């Protein structure tokens, strides 16, 4: 069970989780309000500077961002082909700034803080009957918590292919990954039920031996 959270006592660790998540939301809205390459480049610089001030190290930063940077690169190429260089540059800078800041916030906010903050933020929606705040907080917290878990499973399956001398094909990688992830999600759901963490919801027959 790995985690995206990096323990520490930096100024960002100490900042209120609500302020961090709110700030990230505002930052992302502002990024989409402009197409100026200069402003977007400044946003990348700002996000990079905040990330660098945490001193997580190049290796960890690369490990955390490589998958999202790959996705951004693919999206940029498609934008370049479909809309031209100006749009591609805007998409690239906007998403890199967002990814770097989001990664920094995630690395300095524990899963429990995420859950508490989102639950508190969703209370007004609960009052008008739209959501169950605790469930929403738990769900989003679990997404954050599961990201490195799914990546670790992918790496284990890829290593198993290598160890057996099998060619890595998308299908043979994806199928066991999906099955393992769903099975693990089922086990976590059973644990959440068993520990009474959320509202009661009796499950039907699960695994049995």
């Amino acid at each position: 069970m790995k985690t995206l959270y990096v323990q520490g006592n930096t100024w960002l660790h100490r900042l209120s989780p609500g302020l961090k998540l709110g700030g990230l939301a505002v930052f992302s809205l502002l990024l989409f309000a402009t197409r100026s390459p200069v402003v977007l480049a400044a946003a990348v610089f700002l996000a990079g500077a905040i990330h660098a001030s945490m001193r997580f190290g190049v290796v960890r930063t690369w490990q955390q961002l490589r998958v999202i940077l790959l996705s951004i690169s693919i999206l940029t190429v498609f934008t370049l082909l479909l809309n031209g260089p100006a749009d591609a540059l805007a998409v690239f800078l906007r998403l890199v700034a967002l990814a770097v800041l989001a990664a920094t916030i995630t690395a300095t906010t524990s899963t429990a803080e995420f859950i508490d903050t989102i639950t508190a933020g969703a209370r007004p929606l609960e009052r008008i009957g739209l959501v169950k705040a605790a469930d929403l907080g738990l769900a989003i917290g679990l997404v954050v918590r599961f990201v490195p878990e799914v990546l670790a499973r992918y790496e284990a399956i890829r290593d198993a292919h290598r160890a057996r001398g099998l060619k890595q094909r998308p299908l043979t990688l994806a199928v066991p990954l999906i099955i393992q992830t769903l099975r693990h999600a089922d086990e976590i759901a059973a644990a959440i039920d068993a520990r009474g963490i959320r509202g009661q919801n009796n499950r039907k027959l699960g695994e049995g031996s």
Partner: protein
Amino acid sequence: MDIRFEQAEARFEGRTVLHPLTLTLTERRIGIIGLNGSGKTTFARMINGLVTPAAGRVTLNGFDTASDGEQVRSAAGFIFQNPQNQIVLPILKEDIALGLTSRKLSREEKQAEVNAVLARFGIEHLADRRVHELSGGELQLAALASVLVTRPEILIMDEPTNQLDLRNRALVEKTVHSLEENVLVISHDLDLIAGFDRVLLFHDGRLLADGEPPVVIDRYRTLCAA
């Protein structure tokens, strides 16, 4: 503690995994043994309502496991076969505190409860550790702490010494024997349950033997040798 199975039956994908069973459990230390696939885990999961009966009824202290989930789960804690699957959050103290969510405690009260349960098992030093960094024995203690913080009346443990080395096995055995709570343990570790009050032997989804540990364990050895 009063657990009752009244003609309770469990099915999975059309297959009966636990045949209709009627029995009452009131003892403080209960062991469950049987071969793989004999229905042990299903039986244990029926006690805290993780598995609801396809027919019949299971009650814990008078609460129906199918309809009174909240009362049943607050009375029965469950330790899963793989404690990794039990621990939801990656930092130990946060995971233990998560179990207190439904009790609407203040942050300070939660912290006090977490500290108390960590101290009970002598694992205060693990509070800020990431769960994936813990050893097998530490993980079992962490899982115990995460369940016992809610103060259940009975603790159900599914093969708590499985996959542990001898040192960690001894640590967990010692801890299980020192628990004040009622305990129901599924185990292949016959030494662990030898001193229990009652042992149930399951085979092919049926209760094959039920009684004092020496008698039932002998029956199990005979079954394994056959």
